[in-house]
């Protein structure tokens, strides 16, 4: 995935379209928007930084998982098999980008009111006692669609494609615009690139 920080305006469309797609419980974000100020008044800039699981090439979360619940698909998507997850949370400790969430007990957005009809449908897929995270909307991708955050972004700041194909749009954008990953020194090889603001 490539995220163009020049186009992003911090509208929270990614964070919230992800919620809408997955019905994630309160406090769980497969996609999030961070805001950061750089510099001092008056030479200050405001940076919007959308984050998600970076689907690393060499994912430490997979390595530490004792039950092989965290795994990598052949296409590179890092996923969690909730059947196998025992909720030990070692992966959360291992993830250098803090993009994993532990869903301890059933909770819904209107506390004390149970699940809304929407949540009853959308949240059925979420089991408790396991770790959750972004899987690049693998069901959508398998159905030929883009991940929800990509398809919805009002500024068309997100691109999804094959990084291994040098002629793909994502590869071209990274090359032409000087795309970079966050904290490459960690060495996990993130598959989410940013284009400079």
């Amino acid at each position, binding site marked *: 995935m490539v995220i*163009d920080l*020049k*186009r992003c*305006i*911090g*509208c*929270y*469309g990614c*964070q*919230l*379209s992800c*919620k*809408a*797609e997955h019905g994630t419980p*309160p*406090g769980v974000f497969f996609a*999030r*928007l961070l*805001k950061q*100020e750089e*510099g*001092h*008044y*008056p030479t*200050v*800039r*405001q*940076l*919007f930084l959308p984050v998600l699981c970076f689907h690393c090439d060499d994912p430490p979360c997979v390595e530490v998982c004792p039950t092989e619940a965290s795994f990598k698909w052949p296409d590179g998507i890092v996923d969690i098999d909730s059947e196998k997850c025992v909720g030990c949370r070692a992966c959360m400790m291992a993830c250098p980008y803090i993009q994993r969430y532990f869903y301890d007990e059933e909770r819904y*957005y*209107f506390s004390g*009111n149970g699940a*809304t*009809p*929407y*949540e*009853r*449908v*959308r949240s059925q897929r979420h089991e408790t006692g396991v770790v959750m995270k972004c899987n690049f909307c693998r069901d959508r991708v398998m159905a030929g669609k883009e991940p929800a955050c990509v*398809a*919805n*972004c*009002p*500024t*068309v*700041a997100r691109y999804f494609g094959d990084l291994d194909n040098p002629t793909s749009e994502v590869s071209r954008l990274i090359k032409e615009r000087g795309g970079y990953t966050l904290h490459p020194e960690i060495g996990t090889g993130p598959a989410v690139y940013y284009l400079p603001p």
Partner: protein
Amino acid sequence: MEMVAEATQTNGQLNDAWIPSACSLCYGTCSILAHRLDGVLVKIEGNPESAVGKGRLCGKGVSGLMTHYDPHRVRVPLRRTNPIKGIGIDPGWKEISWDAALDEIAERLRKLREDDPRKLFIQRTTTVTSSRTPIQVFAAAFGTPNRSSAGGGLHCGNGAHLISGIMHASWSVVPDFQYCNYAVYFGASKGHSAGHASCSNMGLAADARARGMKMVVVDPMCNFAAAKATEWVPIRVGTDAALALAMCNVTVNELGIYDAPYLQAKTNAPYLIGPDKSYVRDPESRKPLVWDRVVRKAQPYDAAKPQEMALEGKFEVNGVPCEPSFQLLKEHLKTFTPEWAERITTIPAKNIRRLGSEFAREARVGSTIVIDGITLPYRPVAAIAFRGSQGHMNSVYDFLAVDLLNHLVGSADMVGGCLGFNPACHGHPDTGRPHFIPKAGPDGLMITGIWMAHHNPYPIREPRMPEQVGLQDLFVLCQTSPFSDSSDHEELWDKFHLPYRPEILLNYGTNLLMSIGNKETVAKSLAKFKFIISFDLFLTESSDFADIVLPDCDYLESLDSRPNFPFIFNLPGGMGEWCWPIKQPTVNPDGQQRRCSDILVELADRIGMREDLNAAFNAILKLEGPFRLERERRYSYEEVCDAELKTNFGPDRGLEWFRKHGVIKWPKKPGEVYWRHCVDVRVPIYWEFLPAIREKIAAIAEPRGVKIPQEYYEPLPDWIPCSSHVENTPGYDLFAFYYRDIIHTNSFTMENPWLDEAARLDPYSYTIAINAETGRKKGLKEGEEIWVETEKGRRVKGRLHLTEAIHPEGLGIGACAGHWGDGMPVAKGKGVFFNDLLEVDFDHVSPVNLKGLCRALGRRNARRQGKGRFFQRSLRG
């Protein structure tokens, strides 16, 4: 179209449908697809078939289901049992039947109408602006002129709408994103946050940024538009007019750059002005005169060729010394030097000079471009203002000063310039409807082709003894008024001998107590109504004052034949497509909720005003031919919507066609988008009519003890300080302002738990922002709870955020938060109630357009008395 049609088919055993409709989380009203699975809505996405949003939605739009399925929605009609009304007083709600509710309401309304229909006051929220037709029609049929939108307090752009109307024939302005190379934003967020066509503009602005459009954002706070700017220009709150006037001066007097052919042909710049500041007129035709440089004599403006009209010089006509209005403007601007503006705005003079120079040079005055085979003027610069820069007493001059930049370089509604959105439409190719084009009115000045409010902005109405509770018929330049709720309204009504008092309030979705000003003042006004009927989704702080609350359907349960019409309100500007979507029910209500539109139609019948209602529908929706409603027949609102759609798009494209297809669209033509070049109308760079309007208002107001200050009614704009700029109460040293948050709309969306959660994680949404260094000097700490206090002693509490991204004298508060009622428990206690700091009275609004509620405020630390001098200013549109 195919995708939508295909998607709406059912799928095997599960009833699986994608239904095209329209969002209503803000008034942008983007087109949506609602995914319904076995009767439950499970997803909302943008409708890729529509130009409104183009298949993408903002964070609010995708979160709509959490509002729809909120367990705290009102689901049954309620009647109060406690006759005492006040903040925090339990109404003692009792569930009643719809029949009982409507019987009582109809009986009261019928009696009131017989007595004096003006005693009915109708108020609606801005969020449902697109669905205002039934309210508008009901008011017209009932016979009351008293109709308003609650956003008219704080949120509305009275100056922006008035001046966009007079100068651009539209409700607001945007850069021509497709071609603009240099945009200067003054307190606007077009394409970076909320408001008109907000989601579409986000995509267009991102394209422009990627293309290399330079964007300078003048703003006390660096977020949203300023965060994406090429250059952020921090400015002292409320002084934008001073900067704009200095930039005009640099352009015209220091650089000598202006578009003379534009000024000659498209404005009143050549009109001769006499010593009395008025036009010198032809004795016979009474038309304003211009000086014809070829025949060397004065001619009526429509008798001379524009290129021969003098813009400068001093002349004498029939013994009267006179000069073109442009000459006067040029001289007037000389007083606004960059050095003068630096003292007002805190922006260094050299920067002001540079900004003026960049704007003027980038305008490429004289250049042309070919669009779809038509040669048009190419002026790729835009000066854009909106709510932020004009939310104070100098509202009119402020917006006009900014817009003058566009008119001086000829970029108004030209390719790449500052566009009013969609003021000219030649109609669908099959029917020629809807059709509207600006035209020349009195003195050759422009009349809009279509408008949103009660009265066209020009020609300006004659001021008269007021019969409206908001005094709009006296203060004829205002679009909305605070006087239905102000602390001095009774006094004003007495002074102007208002022949009645409002008795019944019909409220549609408004939370007035939070949307206008301080709650005590508004509460006193609300408590005076003898009876209040409130259509609500939730029990708000204001519904506590209602006598009967009616459970409304939300946008996913409602019908509207025109969610994006008029196009001047929320269809994206620039080239692209005309697009007319509908809003339609996607599910049935889960309780006793009924649609406000249906209830109003039923009430009209019960009151006995069916004929008047049908006549009003015919007039307001411009129903024609076989689709005109018959006088005495009873129509459902669905039938009315069907009639409107068929009137505009032909008998085969009625409601059924739209239910299936969701939207009709057709391409825009260059002659529509860049209409100004093609239509022979002029706009006033010199507001000659203002002094005369003031005299007429003063003739009525001043003998009754209401002073109408002359300085606000001069023909050329000025910078007039607000009281907070000149008062020097020791220690009150900060200017507070309100700004729109990207994930919140009015006071409504804090109840949506997804949006609330995002706002709680955001550093700014629910906090009070103060410059980090300023905060340090005052001994304030990040995250601590502080009180903000005005010189009048009004106070609000909130969590402090120290930031580098704000002017050292500024104090920014986002959104209209700070709910205290129990009816919206998610929203309760979240964020800061900025409006509670505002006085609501004549002394704190613009005496021209009633904009502002300008306020001198202060802040103090929760522990230690500190002082500040603040006033209201919203950053963004």
